[in-house]
């Protein structure tokens, strides 16, 4: 039950490396904020600054309206789930979960009640007497969650908690984390480099790159209106097709009914916004692009056609089985309203 506000937060390491270059984010109460970005973009550093594990070079971090820059991690009343779970290897599951409460001087019967309640919620009740090494990856993950939940903190912090699980378990845990976070109503900050995790979990999605926020907002807004070529290529799988324009002119083999915006330097469109030209769609009212199929990737429900065009390589997504073969020539149609334009600096042109 708390808001988390970052104001122009910076982190400069002793060597002069600036990991976070002034980030401001307001996370509303009960929201799940996901920080997403490539490795080294500063997202983990930012999370650790919120946790109090890393000092803040400048700017302020406030939890529940109070500036906590100089407050230690214990007093910030946060709980953190680590990438490698960081369970205490010599303690039983019960003690792992109870440790934080004991250090806070919670009465014994209260600890017992809370640990058992939490274990029940997470279906860990039968594992309380085991040690971490006797648990599977998924179970360890649950214990790490339990250790966070049992304390009933103001803020949950997740540092890539699912990256050590296999794909199937990751999907399950993702849904579980989302449900748990919603039912507990605890403000959360979640760091990941997986854009799918980011899209599905986030109430507020923050895309970071090079220590700066590229774009923040609702996941689908970001998906539909990426603010930069970086966001466009980072969010969505496969990423948005980007075609460089040579001085405002479309590459060879491309026709467009609408005018190109004057400052545009890059043209983008999502692989799923594409239609293949056939007799019916021949007269398109959007962009018309010639492409040659280089590789076909069937994944069952859909197929991806990797194709070469005059403006570079693009991916086209078609439902079901692909009819095209490598070497086939395609005509790719994109409606005008599905085209994204970016300027020289990579910023979106509206």
């Amino acid at each position: 039950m708390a808001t988390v506000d970052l104001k122009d937060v910076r982190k400069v390491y002793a060597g002069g490396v600036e990991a976070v270059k002034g980030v401001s984010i307001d996370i509303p109460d009960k929201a799940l904020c996901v920080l997403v970005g490539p490795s080294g973009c500063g997202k983990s550093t930012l999370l650790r600054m919120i946790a109090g594990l890393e000092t803040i070079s400048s700017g302020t971090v406030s939890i529940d309206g109070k500036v906590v820059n100089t407050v230690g991690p214990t007093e910030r009343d946060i709980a953190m789930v680590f990438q490698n779970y960081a369970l205490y290897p010599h303690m039983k599951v019960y003690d792992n979960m109870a440790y934080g409460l004991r250090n806070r001087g919670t009465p014994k019967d209260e600890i017992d009640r809370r640990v058992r309640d939490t274990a029940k919620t997470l279906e860990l009740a039968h594992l309380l007497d085991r040690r971490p090494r006797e648990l599977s990856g998924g179970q360890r993950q649950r214990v790490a969650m339990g250790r966070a939940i049992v304390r009933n903190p103001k803020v949950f912090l997740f540092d890539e908690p699912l990256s050590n699980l296999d794909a199937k378990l990751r999907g399950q845990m993702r849904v579980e984390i989302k449900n748990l976070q919603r039912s507990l109503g605890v403000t959360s900050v979640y760091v990941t480099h997986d854009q799918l995790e980011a899209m599905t979990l986030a109430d507020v999605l923050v895309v970071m790159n090079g220590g700066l926020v590229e774009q923040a907002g609702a996941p689908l807004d970001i998906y539909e209106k990426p603010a930069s070529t970086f966001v466009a290529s980072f969010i969505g799988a496969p990423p948005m097709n980007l075609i460089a324009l040579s001085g405002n002119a479309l590459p060879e083999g491309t026709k467009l009914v609408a005018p190109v915006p004057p400052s545009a330097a890059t043209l983008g469109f999502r692989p799923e916004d594409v239609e293949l030209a056939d007799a019916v769609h021949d007269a398109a009212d959007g962009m018309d692009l010639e492409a040659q199929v280089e590789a076909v990737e069937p994944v069952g429900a859909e197929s991806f056609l990797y194709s070469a065009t005059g403006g570079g390589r693009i991916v086209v997504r078609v439902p079901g089985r692909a009819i095209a073969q490598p070497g086939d020539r395609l005509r790719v149609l994109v409606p005008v309203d599905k085209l994204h334009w970016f300027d020289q600096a990579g910023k979106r042109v509206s």
Partner: protein
Amino acid sequence: MVETPAAVTPAKATSTAAVLGRKEDGAMLGVSRSSRYIAHVILILGIVIVAFPIYYTFVASTHTLQTILRPPLPLIPGDQFFENYSEALFGGVGRIGGVAVSTLLFNTMVVALAIAIGKIIISILSAYAIVFFRFPFRMVFFWVIFITLMLPVEVRIMPTYKVMSDLGLIDTYTGLTLPLMASATATLLFRQFFLTIPGELVEAARVDGAGPYRFFKDILLPLSRTNIAALFVILFIYGWTQYLWPLLMTNRNDMNTIVIALKKMISFADADTQWHLVMVTSMLAIIPPILVVLLMQRWFVRGLVDTEK
């Protein structure tokens, strides 16, 4: 080129079958029966070679002085077991001023335990400071500790003796143990172990509200258990077998350690030496280290092979 794989496959198949066949015979790892016998013969020979002198010492410790001095010494134990052992343990040995071996055992036990426990406490604390805390000149301290590796007691024995004698610590347990406690080796060992503890674990403890003392007590100590046990065994034996330093530090016979006393018991003149008591003392001197190794074996091996993470 095409024929090669075809030629390899049947050969592979037969060798696999052969290994499986041997496994059915009960031999482990495909070792044949005869080579197992050879291995055992070699092992038994080795044990005999190592154990025979100890057995012979035991035999000598159960005969009278006259029997020992009149060769050859019998190969089977004599009938003086209780007489010799009780004389040595409680009666006192003439050549070392009538001090009983029980006193020597007590002295040596105190010295070995103090050195082992003292070393472990000092080194685990200094390793804790060096690994987990950022303080000015941290690396300087680390290197200073590291350099002492090159200065064992023997090298700095004169100045150390001077300091100890100026402090009036000759013939005291403090004097016997204190200079041997500061240990670079144990500090380095703990440092290496602490460095393998993941940073996330430290951070999880911080988030869980564990301060430096709690982290040390609740997390670091339990995790170091096996390392401490292994180190204890090594250091106990190191303390038990100390020779040069106790030789310098003790003048009074009743402050001797057993190794020193043993040396003092032996005279140049053969007839002057109470050989039966020397043998008894030798036997008694090796029992405690053996016990420590046997009792701590399980922990010791675990400490050397895994770190339980």
